[in-house]
């Protein structure tokens, strides 16, 4: 055991961390309301909840990013205040954030010692850390190379560096925020093995996630958060996914999308031998070929970062590539002046991008200005040399009504809408164009469950009108329930094609991990 301060395993009656009545509000919004939680040492505790339920705020309070308005934090029987991260570390709390906090051009070793150096000079600290790292690495099967640069190693490995950082600082309580979002199922299994090992050492692990499967697989106890409140805490063995989902949302949820079988028509999109090499000279797409027919949804599954984003960017016109892409039988340019978003739109391609905040919307523009985004050259919105803002606003109001955007005020800036309503603004803009081909990336990322249903219905309805749809999502559930055909991408290549009713998450998971042989 690496931590000399742990005096054996404390008896089960004393929780290693206890929260009493934690509240926190931002202006009029109450993010955490009277949260009470007890977690025993040597257990894995899950916290599950929708986006915006207040999970992250709670964790930020525990790690000293925010100060709670009221409430107590008790760690190993000791009331503790956590004014900053330093205090959190001193209290034995280690945090693995969803977005890793690593310095990309530093080595693993440098990242681990950053902030926990032994003295003013680096050399002795590095030597000591190297030794300790070797021991820890062996003990928990972490397999990291201390001299590798962060930018050169994969996300799974980066995550293990984050865990190492916490262990190096003698953390007894490890909090992981959405740790599997960027991992393949097999990497996730590796992570869970590590977590189980830590649990056996007597560490306390808190796992924050919105994935029900993980909760059921690995946790001992689970708490559900909804609208800033802790609505229930139960033993995992005594609950079911359905019950948890209901607790999360507050009503029964439709987990499957109702749809008729597809009636595919003519080929709308044909992609042959598509290759992309990025600015760092890394090959992102390695010869991808597929096609999509009218009236079908092609789902593209894969862990993020395996070429799906580049594929969407190429089809959307803002990433140059080599190969052939035909839309309705006609070649489109993949490089040069006529390869941009404007000419793609002219060819009947609409695109709901993966990251609506960075690409799909201008967050400071009003809803009506965003409605023209990408279609600002449309004659419908112009009046001679000028833009016809009145027509644009009328059009926006109409769309907002049809897509049930709330509040239906076209003067509000995009940033003041919730995630779901932002997505509806983008969808309305793209779908109402009546495109032949719709590209849609992560349609429900950061979207509340109510809006998910609506968005899924819209996608299926568009398919039923005979449009071709390319759907990219990292959520396997979404891919399985929406697609008519599924292709799986790994490392810039297509690993295989499956039909949704003849496959399952396990098989797709193996393909996503690049294991073709086993999956066949």
């Amino acid at each position, binding site marked *: 055991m690496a931590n000399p301060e742990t005096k054996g395993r404390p008896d089960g009656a004393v929780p290693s961390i206890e929260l009493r009545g934690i509240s926190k509000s*931002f202006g*009029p*919004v109450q993010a955490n309301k009277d949260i009470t939680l007890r977690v025993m040492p040597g257990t894995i505790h899950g916290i599950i909840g929708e986006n*915006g339920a207040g999970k992250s705020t709670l964790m930020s309070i525990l790690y000293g990013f925010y100060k709670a308005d009221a409430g107590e934090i008790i760690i190993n029987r000791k009331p503790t205040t956590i004014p900053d991260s330093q205090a959190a570390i001193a209290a034995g709390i280690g945090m693995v954030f969803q977005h890793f906090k690593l310095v990309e051009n530093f080595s693993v070793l440098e990242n681990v010692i950053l902030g926990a150096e032994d003295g003013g000079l680096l050399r002795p600290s590095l030597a000591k850390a190297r030794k300790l790292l070797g021991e820890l690495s062996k003990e928990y099967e972490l397999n990291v190379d201390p001299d590798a640069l962060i930018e050169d190693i994969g996300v799974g490995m980066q995550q293990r560096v984050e865990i190492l950082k916490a262990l190096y600082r003698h953390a007894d309580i490890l909090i992981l925020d959405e740790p599997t979002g960027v991992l393949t199922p097999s990497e996730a299994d590796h992570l869970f093995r590590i977590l189980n090992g830590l649990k056996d050492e007597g560490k306390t692990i808190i796992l924050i996630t919105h994935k029900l499967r993980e909760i059921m697989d690995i946790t001992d106890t689970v708490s559900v958060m909804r609208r800033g409140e802790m609505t229930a805490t139960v033993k995992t063995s005594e609950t079911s996914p359905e019950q948890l989902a209901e607790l999360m949302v507050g009503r029964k949820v439709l987990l499957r999308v109702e749809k008729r079988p597809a009636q595919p028509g003519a080929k709308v999109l044909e992609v042959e031998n598509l290759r992309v090499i990025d600015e760092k000279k890394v090959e992102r797409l390695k010869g991808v070929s597929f096609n999509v027919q009218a009236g079908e949804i092609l789902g593209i599954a894969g862990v993020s970062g395996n070429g799906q984003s580049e594929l969407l960017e190429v089809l959307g016109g*803002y990433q140059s590539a080599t190969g052939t892409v035909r839309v309705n039988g006609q070649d489109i340019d993949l490089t040069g002046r006529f390869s941009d978003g404007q000419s793609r739109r002219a060819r009947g391609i609409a695109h709901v991008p993966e990251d609506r905040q960075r690409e799909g919307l*201008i967050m400071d*523009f009003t809803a009506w200005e965003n409605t*023209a*985004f990408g279609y600002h*050259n449309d004659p419908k919105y112009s009046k001679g040399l000028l833009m016809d803002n009145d027509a644009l606003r009328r059009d926006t109001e109409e769309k907002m009504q049809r897509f049930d955007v709330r509040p239906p005020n076209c003067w509000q800036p995009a940033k003041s809408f919730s995630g779901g309503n932002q997505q509806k603004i983008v969808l309305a803009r793209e779908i109402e164009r009546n495109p032949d081909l719709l590209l849609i990336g992560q349609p429900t990322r950061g979207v509340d469950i109510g809006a998910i249903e609506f968005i899924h219905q819209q996608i299926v309805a568009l398919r039923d009108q005979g449009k071709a749809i390319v759907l990219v999502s990292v959520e396997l559930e979404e891919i399985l329930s929406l697609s008519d055909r599924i292709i799986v991408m790994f490392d810039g290549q297509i690993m295989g094609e499956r039909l949704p009713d003849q496959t399952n998450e396990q098989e797709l998971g193996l393909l996503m991990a690049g294991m073709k042989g086993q999956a066949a």
Partner: protein
Amino acid sequence: MDAMPKWAEVILIPLISLILAFFLSGLVILAIGENPIRALQIMISGALGSTYGWGYTLYYATNFIFTGLAVAVAFQARLFNIGGEGQAALGGLGVALICLYIPFPHWTMALPAAILGAAIFGAFWAMIPGYLQARLGVHVVITTIMFNFIGASILNYLLVDILRPPTSMNPATARFPDATNLPSLHDVLSVVGIPFSRAAPANISFFIAILACIVIWVLIWHTRLGYQIRAFGQSESAAKYAGISPEKIIMVTMLISGGLAGMMAINNVMGEAERLVQNAVEGAGFIGIAVALMGRSHPIGVFLAAILFGFLYQGGAELSLETSIPSDLIVVIQALVILFTGALDDMVRAPLKSMFLMFRKPEATPKAPKPAE
């Protein structure tokens, strides 16, 4: 969180920043042993107390409207063009060449040609930094600074060695022909019967400047190009998604910006000096930064801020005549305005925001979206 009403954001914050800048400048005046209140009185009476003072105030303001618009347009695309100084100097060269070498029968013909020449030369001087930014990602801040120096050297050379008439010792061009001289504000206003100082340099360019404000307002908020410029300025990644070419927008914006800065020359070179002299721009390019920041990059704001700085400039000139305070005081005020409106914005905003929140609390409507995710 939109805690503050729009008017506070647009009017109150610049105003408070200005008052802070004035207050600190007052302390500086006090520190060098002069009376700040008296200084302010001298400035006001010198700049606004007579049509002569107004004539100078509006003359300076005209310069600042052009350079302010230049910076403001670039700001819309999130480009920081601090090369207004060099671009305006080159604009002067354009005006001089056109006025000296093309025989115009009347100023009404000379003016459009001069505007075009000024804009083309100014735009040319912004083109290379724009190109380096668009193509190679060399930050325009550094290159435009360098181009200010290069522009000054070239003008220096041309005025001393090439354009100077052989009989003159002054590094300046010959006087422009009379037919190219623009009517002064005195001439214009006497048509409608308003008496105005004959000696003041304000001229018809002032109206061109107002026109430029209107054109820029239409361009930015009512045309497709303006839409694309603003979209690019807000988010480059989104612009790419929408098929807005960053290269094109950077180039076009820099050309417009340089052209506007260059157009300043119709006021100071063609309208006032009636020949091209050394260092004709006199720092107006840099004041454009203060004007654009203070005017919140909006043409109306730029117009008002330019008038304010015109007042400061004329007042400062009077001040250096009547007291021992050098006109460098204006540079200090201008620097403080830029500092407070551009960089220490949050220092002014945060307390104001909490004040507005305090007054609002009783009727708090939880309308704002959840900030926490």
